[in-house]
C-alpha cells in the first residue's frame, strides 16, 4: 500500500468537504438555514444526501468485515439497513414531515404536550448519537492506521476536528451538498475496484479462485445459520438483528433531521423511494469484498477483518494499480466517516443547543448572544463525549456497535413514533414509560457489549442482539401504561392526528406549526 497516494486521496476528500462547507457558510445566514436548509432541497438531492449520510463506517468497512469472518448470516446487516427505510416509509415518513417539527424532541413535545417527554427524548438523541459516533471514530482510526501505520488516535482526531469545524461553519445547508457528493464518492470508491477485478478476472489474469470460496460446497462459511465465526443461536440472532435494523432506522437522530428538509409529506415519501434504490445499489458491493477476501486475504479473518475493503485492492494488484485503487477506497472510507459523523453531530448539536444551552446562555449573557454561536458551542460538545469514549474503548466491531445503536432506537423512538402517529389514545405517561423502560433495557445491553460482554451461549446472544426482547418490551409498556392512564391522553391528540395525516392540499385547521 502506498501511504503517499492514499493520504493525498484522503486529503482531497477533506479539502472538498471543507471547501463545500465554507461555500455553505456564505449562503447560510439564518438559524433556520442552519437546521434544515430552509426546507428547499429537491427529492433527488435530498435522497443522495440521506444515503450519503446513512452509509457509515459500518456499511463501508464493517459489513464486509463481518461477512468475511462470520459468513452468510451477516448479509442480513445490509438487508436490514435497507429495509429500515421501507419501514420508515410506510410508518412515519409523510406524517412526520406533516408534524412540522424539526427534531425528535420537537415531535414528542407537540404530540404529547409534555416538557418531560421532550427532555427524555433529548437525552436519548444524545445517547444514540454518541453510540453511533463511537464506531465512526474507530473506523477513521483504523483506516489511517492501515494506510500509514500511525496510531488510531490520529485518524479519529482528524475526523473529529473536521466534522466540528464543518458543522459549526455551515450547519445543514452545506451539509446537504457535502452529503450528496459523498454518496456518489462512496459508491464509486467501492464499485470501481470490484469492476477492475472482474475485468482482470475475465481477461484471464486471475483465473483462480474468485468464485471458488463461494462455490466450495464444504465451506460452512457460505451457509446461513452455520455458526461460522463462533456465533451461537444464529436463528435468534438473525431475527433480533433484523428487528433492530428494520425498526431502528426511523429512530436514528440524523435520519429524522434529514426528513424535515422535504417540502411536504408527498416529497418525503418520494425521497424515501429514491433512497431505497441508492442503498440497494450500494449494498451489492460489500459482500463481494468479503468473498474476494476469503480467497485473497484469508489472514484478515483472524485479525483486522474490518480492514478487508482497504487491503484488498493491493492484495490483488500489487503495484501502482493496487495503490491507486487502494487510495480511492481509503478516500471513500473517509467520506463515510465524515458524512455520517457530520449528520450525527448536526442532530446532537441541535438538541443540545435547543434544550440545554440556549436558555442558559440567554440567562448568563442577559440576552446578549447570537443564536448561531450557541449552536457552534453545542457542535463542539457533541463530539467531545464520543471522542473521550473512543480513547477509553479498545477495538470494536464497527457493524456490531452500530447495530446496538439501532437496537436502542428500535426500543425507544420506534414505539414513540409508530404509536404516536397511528394510535390516538396513547397517553403522555405511556410515552414516557415506554421511552424509559426500552431505553434502560437496550442501553444496558449496549453498554455491556461495548465494555466486553458475556462470552457465549444465551447470555451473549440476548445481550449482543437485544432488540428481540427490548423492542416488544417497550411497545407493551407504552400500551399497558396508556390503557391505565386514559386521563393523561393529550388534550390535542385528535387535532394532532388530523395534522399528521391530512395531505397538504387539503385546507384544515392544523393547529400551530412547531415554529
Amino acid at each position: 500500500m502506498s501511504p503517499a497516494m492514499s493520504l493525498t486521496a484522503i486529503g482531497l476528500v477533506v479539502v472538498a468537504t471543507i471547501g463545500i462547507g465554507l461555500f455553505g457558510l456564505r449562503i447560510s445566514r439564518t438559524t433556520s438555514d442552519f437546521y434544515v436548509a430552509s426546507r428547499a432541497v429537491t427529492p433527488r438531492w435530498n435522497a443522495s444526501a440521506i444515503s450519503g449520510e446513512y452509509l457509515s463506517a459500518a456499511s463501508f468497512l464493517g459489513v464486509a468485515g463481518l461477512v468475511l469472518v462470520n459468513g452468510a448470516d451477516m448479509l442480513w446487516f445490509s438487508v436490514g439497513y435497507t429495509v429500515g427505510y421501507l419501514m420508515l416509509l410506510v410508518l412515519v415518513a409523510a406524517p412526520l414531515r406533516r408534524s412540522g417539527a424539526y427534531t425528535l424532541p420537537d415531535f414528542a413535545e407537540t404530540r404529547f404536550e409534555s416538557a418531560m417527554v421532550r427532555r427524555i427524548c433529548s437525552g436519548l438523541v444524545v445517547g444514540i448519537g454518541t453510540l453511533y459516533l463511537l464506531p465512526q471514530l474507530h473506523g477513521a482510526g483504523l483506516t489511517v492506521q492501515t494506510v500509514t501505520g500511525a496510531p488510531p488516535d490520529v485518524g479519529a482526531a482528524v475526523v473529529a476536528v473536521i466534522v466540528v469545524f464543518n458543522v459549526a461553519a455551515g450547519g445543514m445547508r452545506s451539509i446537504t451538498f457535502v452529503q450528496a457528493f459523498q454518496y456518489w464518492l462512496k459508491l464509486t470508491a467501492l464499485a470501481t475496484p470490484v469492476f477492475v477485478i472482474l475485468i482482470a478476472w475475465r481477461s484471464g489474469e486471475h483465473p483462480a479462485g474468485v468464485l471458488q470460496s463461494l462455490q466450495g460446497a464444504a465451506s460452512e462459511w457460505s451457509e446461513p445459520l452455520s455458526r461460522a465465526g463462533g456465533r451461537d443461536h444464529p436463528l435468534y440472532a438473525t431475527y433480533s438483528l433484523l428487528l433492530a435494523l428494520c425498526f431502528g432506522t426511523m429512530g436514528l437522530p440524523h435520519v429524522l433531521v434529514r426528513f424535515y428538509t422535504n417540502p411536504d409529506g408527498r416529497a418525503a415519501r418520494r425521497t424515501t423511494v429514491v433512497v431505497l434504490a441508492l442503498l440497494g445499489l450500494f449494498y451489492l458491493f460489500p459482500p463481494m469484498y468479503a468473498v474476494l477476501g476469503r480467497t485473497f486475504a484469508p489472514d484478515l479473518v483472524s485479525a483486522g477483518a474490518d480492514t478487508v475493503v482497504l487491503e484488498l485492492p493491493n492484495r490483488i494488484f500489487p503495484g501502482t494499480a493496487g495503490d491507486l485503487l487502494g487510495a480511492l477506497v481509503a478516500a471513500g472510507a473517509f467520506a463515510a466517516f465524515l458524512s455520517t459523523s457530520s449528520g450525527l453531530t448536526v442532530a446532537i448539536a441541535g438538541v443540545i443547543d435547543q434544550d440545554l444551552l440556549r436558555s442558559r446562555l440567554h440567562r448568563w449573557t442577559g440576552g446578549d448572544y447570537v443564536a448561531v454561536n450557541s449552536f457552534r458551542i453545542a457542535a463542539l460538545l457533541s463530539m467531545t463525549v464520543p471522542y473521550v469514549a473512543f480513547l477509553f474503548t479498545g477495538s470494536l466491531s464497527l457493524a456490531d456497535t452500530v447495530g446496538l445503536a439501532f437496537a436502542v432506537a428500535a426500543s425507544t423512538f420506534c414505539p414513540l413514533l409508530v404509536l404516536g402517529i397511528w394510535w390516538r389514545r396513547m397517553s403522555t405517561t405511556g410515552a414516557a414509560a415506554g421511552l424509559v423502560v426500552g431505553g434502560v433495557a437496550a442501553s444496558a445491553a449496549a453498554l455491556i457489549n461495548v465494555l466486553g460482554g458475556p462470552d457465549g451461549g444465551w447470555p451473549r446472544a440476548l445481550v449482543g442482539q437485544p432488540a428481540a426482547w427490548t423492542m416488544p418490551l417497550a411497545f407493551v409498556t407504552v400500551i399497558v401504561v396508556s390503557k391505565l392512564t386514559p386521563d393523561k391522553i393529550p388534550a390535542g391528540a385528535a387535532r394532532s392526528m388530523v395534522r399528521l395525516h391530512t395531505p397538504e392540499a387539503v385546507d384544515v385547521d392544523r393547529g400551530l406549526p412547531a415554529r
Partner: protein
Amino acid sequence: MHSLIQAQLRLTLAVIGGAAVVLGGIPLLFALVPATRTLSVLGLPLPWVILGIVVYPVVYVAARLYVRNAERIEAEFTEFVGRQ
C-alpha cells in the same frame, strides 16, 4: 378523517405483513429446509443470491407500489373534501 387514517393504516400493515412473511420466512426456510442453505443458482449459493442481490429490487418495487397507493388514497380524500 377517520377513514383516511384507517385506509392508510391498512395499507401500511399490508406492506409490513408482506415484509414479515417474505423476509421473516427466509431464515425460517433455511432453518427448516437445510437443503436450501447449499442450493446453487447460476453457480452461486441460493442464500447469497437472495440476500445479496434479489432482495433489493423487491424492496424497491414494494416501496413504489406503496407510494402509488398512499397517494391515491390521499387524492380520493382531497377530492371528497373538495366536493363537500
